[in-house]
């Protein structure tokens, strides 16, 4: 990044120094939802529709390129972006306002993030390498670790099955939104399995795929844990290249909202599966997220950006525990 103008403020250096003194410097996960292609039609009974494909407007389940009709380039492949490691200064750090609405009670909030300049972000790991990211946009998501609910010790072993965490009896799961960890290995990660005890039977949530890891640098993996069905997808980026992970189960899919902390409704373990070799993990967090949506961006060119963000989704833990 030697050719990046850091400006008089030198925001990256400021963030590095401030993070030792205040927790207002946050390590965020940048998420942009996939852009799904639209349902289209090019044929009619007994023939082809005249003109380009008719676009019905609603989305299909695929973000892949679309080549129907005469205008073949109207949708490029646009999968979800999940890029951890965006350091920002947040003010205020937690903004939470309960609002009574027709649909009950909703948690909202607003804050500002101060980020390094766009040039600096564009030169960061993953951000620089994927062809999909060009700037922060309104409605992009910034996921913050609001509170670490469970954490695991650093892990290092040579094996194919890695029990990274065995939870204490009666460890509840309903507060967990996501799992984040850093991993370094010359192996390939094939499965992340979180298991729990739901009503006396062991259930699991697995993220499966084939992710070639790096033996020289840690890769940050951040996956969702709630409201999942078998077949749901998430993404891990390494050097700007996306690996798709698919949700599944080893038995019956786990609904962690139901794990309220009794001995028959609790978390059991986190197990990773890799090809054979040395695997090192650190910074293993099971956390409650704060989902911020970017609403406005002020770009001070070479210096920094001020990003106004709002929180439109939020849930009370008491209700999440009660309703499961």
């Amino acid at each position, binding site marked *: 990044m030697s050719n990046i103008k850091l400006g008089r403020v030198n925001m990256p250096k400021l963030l590095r120094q401030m993070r030792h003194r205040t927790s207002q410097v946050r390590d965020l996960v940048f998420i942009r939802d996939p852009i799904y292609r639209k349902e289209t039609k090019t044929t009619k009974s007994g023939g082809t529709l005249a003109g380009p494909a008719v676009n019905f407007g*609603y989305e299909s389940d695929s973000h892949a390129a679309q080549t129907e009709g005469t205008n073949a380039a109207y949708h490029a492949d646009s999968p979800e972006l999940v890029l951890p490691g965006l350091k920002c200064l947040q003010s205020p750090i937690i903004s939470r306002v309960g609002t009574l*609405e027709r649909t*009950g009670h909703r948690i909202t909030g607003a804050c500002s993030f101060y980020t390094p300049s766009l040039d600096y972000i564009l030169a960061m790991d993953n951000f620089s390498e994927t062809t999909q990211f060009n700037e922060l946009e309104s409605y992009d998501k910034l996921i913050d670790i609001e509170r670490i609910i469970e954490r695991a010790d650093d892990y290092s072993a040579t094996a194919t099955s890695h029990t990274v965490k065995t939870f204490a009896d009666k460890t509840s799961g309903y507060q967990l939104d996501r799992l984040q960890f850093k991993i370094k290995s010359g192996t390939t990660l094939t499965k992340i399995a979180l298991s729990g005890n739901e009503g006396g039977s062991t259930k699991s949530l697995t993220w499966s795929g084939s992710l070639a890891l790096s033996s020289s640098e840690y890769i940050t993996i951040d996956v969702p844990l709630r409201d999942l069905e078998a077949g749901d997808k998430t993404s891990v980026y390494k050097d700007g290249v996306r690996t798709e992970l698919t949700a599944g189960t080893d038995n019956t899919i786990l609904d962690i909202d139901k794990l309220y902390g009794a001995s028959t409704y609790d978390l059991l373990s986190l197990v990773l599966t890799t090809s054979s070799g040395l695997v090192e993990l650190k910074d293993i967090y099971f956390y409650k997220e704060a989902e911020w949506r970017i609403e406005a961006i002020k770009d001070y060119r070479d210096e920094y950006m001020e990003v106004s963000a709002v929180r439109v989704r*939020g*849930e009370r833990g008491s209700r999440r525990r009660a*309703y499961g």
Partner: protein
Amino acid sequence: MAKDYLNVIERALMMGISDKINTLTATGDDIYVFGQFPETEDLKFPCIIIQQIASGVQEKFFGENISFGNDTSETGEAYGIGFMIHLMTDRDTKVTVGSTDYKQRRLLNWLMLNVANALQDINWDTYEEEDLEILERHVLAWNDIGFMPQVDWYGASCRMSIVFLNKR
């Protein structure tokens, strides 16, 4: 025993819609019906929310004695009850009907027609928890069909009214 027609009709309406519309989807377990606006943590999509917005005497009979069927000894009147039926679905929810996947506006279109059909077809005898005599039902047009970008929800609402025999 005190009459409880408003609750009986409201509950029958919800049961009837859910029972009918969920038989049309591939899993038979896709569409949630709520009797009031659910709390955020309890909200699931797609959902149908039944909101009672009005009730009152529709038409009094001359002399107030009624003689429907064998009920010659009772008094009463035609009583009306009005509902708003709200449909909501979010951007990601998918419902499979037959072999076709429905999402977003397509799902909303499907729901509007099939909820209207369910409203027209409810057999009150099946769902009533107290003997009902429904005289009329009117389903009006769907309106406020649209998208809320702040929360990624698609929705529509319609009014309906039911007139029943309020015997006592």
